[in-house]
C-alpha cells in the first residue's frame, strides 16, 4: 500500500508512540500467533507466576488460527480473527510487555486503558483476506501448545504484512472515528 510505514518487531516505546490511528503499516520480522485457547493458557501461567513459552517484551501477537498448509507451503490461509474474544486476557499480556496486537474489530475499554497506560498499539488486518495475507508469511513454527492444533502458538516470520493502526497509545479508536465520519442520520 502506498504511504505505508515499515515496522520491525520487537517494537520500542518510541516506535509505538509515533504510530497513530489510520497509519498503514507493513510489518517485517517475527510475530506470534495466539487466539482464544492459547490466551487462556498464557494468562493462567502468568497468574501462577510460571514462565511463558516466549518473551513478550516488545512483541506483537497476531490473533489467527490458520488453515493447514498445503505441501511445500509454510502456512495456509491466515487472516485475523475477531479480537474482542481476547479482551479478558489482553490487558495482562500488555502489562507484561506486549507492544502490539493484530486482529479485527473493536476492543473493550479495559484493553484501550491498558494500551494507554503501558504504551501498546492495536493493528487491524483485513478480515477474510486469508489467502492474500498467507503470502506475507514466509515461515511458521509451533512454539507452544501443539495439542491446540490451529490454536497453537506459532512463531511467524513475516515480510511486509499489511495492517492499519486502529488503536494507538493516546486511546484513539479508528472504528469509532471512521464510523462517525461516514454516518448519515
Amino acid at each position: 500500500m502506498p504511504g505505508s510505514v515499515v515496522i520491525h518487531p520487537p517494537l520500542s516505546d518510541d516506535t509505538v508512540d509515533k504510530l497513530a490511528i489510520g497509519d498503514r503499516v507493513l510489518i517485517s520480522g517475527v510475530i506470534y500467533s495466539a487466539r482464544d485457547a492459547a490466551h487462556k493458557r498464557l494468562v493462567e501461567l502468568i497468574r501462577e507466576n510460571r514462565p511463558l513459552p516466549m518473551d513478550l517484551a516488545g512483541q506483537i501477537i497476531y490473533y489467527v488460527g490458520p488453515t493447514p498448509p498445503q505441501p511445500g507451503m509454510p502456512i495456509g490461509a491466515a487472516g485475523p480473527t475477531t479480537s474482542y474474544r481476547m479482551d479478558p486476557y489482553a490487558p495482562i499480556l500488555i502489562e507484561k510487555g506486549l507492544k502490539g496486537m493484530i486482529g479485527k474489530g473493536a476492543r473493550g475499554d479495559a484493553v484501550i486503558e491498558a494500551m494507554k497506560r503501558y504504551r501498546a498499539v492495536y493493528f487491524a488486518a483485513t478480515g477474510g483476506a486469508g489467502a492474500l495475507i498467507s503470502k506475507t508469511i514466509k515461515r511458521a513454527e509451533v512454539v507452544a501448545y501443539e495439542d491446540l492444533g490451529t490454536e497453537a502458538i506459532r512463531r511467524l516470520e513475516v515480510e511486509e504484512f499489511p495492517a492499519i493502526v486502529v488503536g494507538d497509545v493516546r486511546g484513539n479508536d479508528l472504528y469509532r472515528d471512521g464510523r462517525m465520519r461516514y454516518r448519515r442520520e
Partner: protein
Amino acid sequence: MGVREIPVDRITEVVRRLCIEANTILGDDVVAALETSLAIEESPVGQDVFRQLIRNADIARTEGIPLCQDTGMVVVFLEIGQDVHLTRGDLETAVNEGVRQGYRDGYLRASTLDPLTRKNFGDNTPAVIHTRIVPGDRIKVALAAKGFGSENMSQVALFPPSHGIDGIKKFVVGRVDAAGPNPCPPVVVGVGIGGTMEKAAILSKESLLRPIGHRHPNPDISQLELELLKEINNLGIGPQGLGGRITALDVHIETYPTHIGSIPVAVNLQCHSGRHKESII
C-alpha cells in the same frame, strides 16, 4: 414415476467437492458486488479493503488457498425428492463423511468441537443438516461454510405484534450497528420473519443462499429489503468497520406465516466472504 435409487456415497462425493469449492472459489455474485462497491466507496481505507478482497479471491481461486482461515462450520440444506430411495448407508453419515474428506483433502481448518469441554474433533464434523422432502426424484444439496465472526453477531427476537414493520426495521438495523466491525463488513444481512423461533432462524440462514442482487419476488418485501439496505449503509460502519459507505452488500428477507401473538425476527449476518455452493444429484 418409479423409485430412483441413489447410493449415499454419491452424496459424500458431492459434499466433499462443495466443501472445497465453497472455500476457495468466491461466487461470481460476490466478486461482482465487491467490484461495484470499490467503484462506489468514498473512503480510501475502504477502497484498499475492497482491492485486497478482490486480490484475495483471485489468489484463492488460482492457488486453491482458502479465502479465509475460518473455513466455517458446514451447514447443508438437502431437498430430497420423495421418489428417491437412498441405498448403501445412511444419509447423515454420508454427509459427514463428505465434510471429513473435503476438509482433509482441501487443507481446510477443523473448527468444530464439543461446546462444553471445548475439545476439537479434528475433522470439522458434524455438519448442521436441514432436510426437506419435496416432489420428484432428485436431491438438491446446498452447502454453506459458515464463518463464526459473523455468526456470533447474529440474533433472534420475538416481538409483540404492536412492534410492526418499523419495529422489525429498527431491530435489523440496530443489530448491524451493534455488530459494527466484528462480522467482517461489508456483510450480507439475512432476515427471517415469521414462523416460530427456530423457523425464523432457519429462514434467515436460508436467505443467505440467495445470490447478491436478487430480490424477493414479493414487491413489498423486495421494497423492504432495499429500504433496510439503504438505512444500513447510512450507518457509516464501512468495509471492515473502518468507516465508509458500504456496510452491507445486500439484505435478503424470507418470510413464513406466524401466530397472532408474535413477530419472530432473526438476523443472520454473513461476512463478505459468502461461501456457499449447490449441486443437484
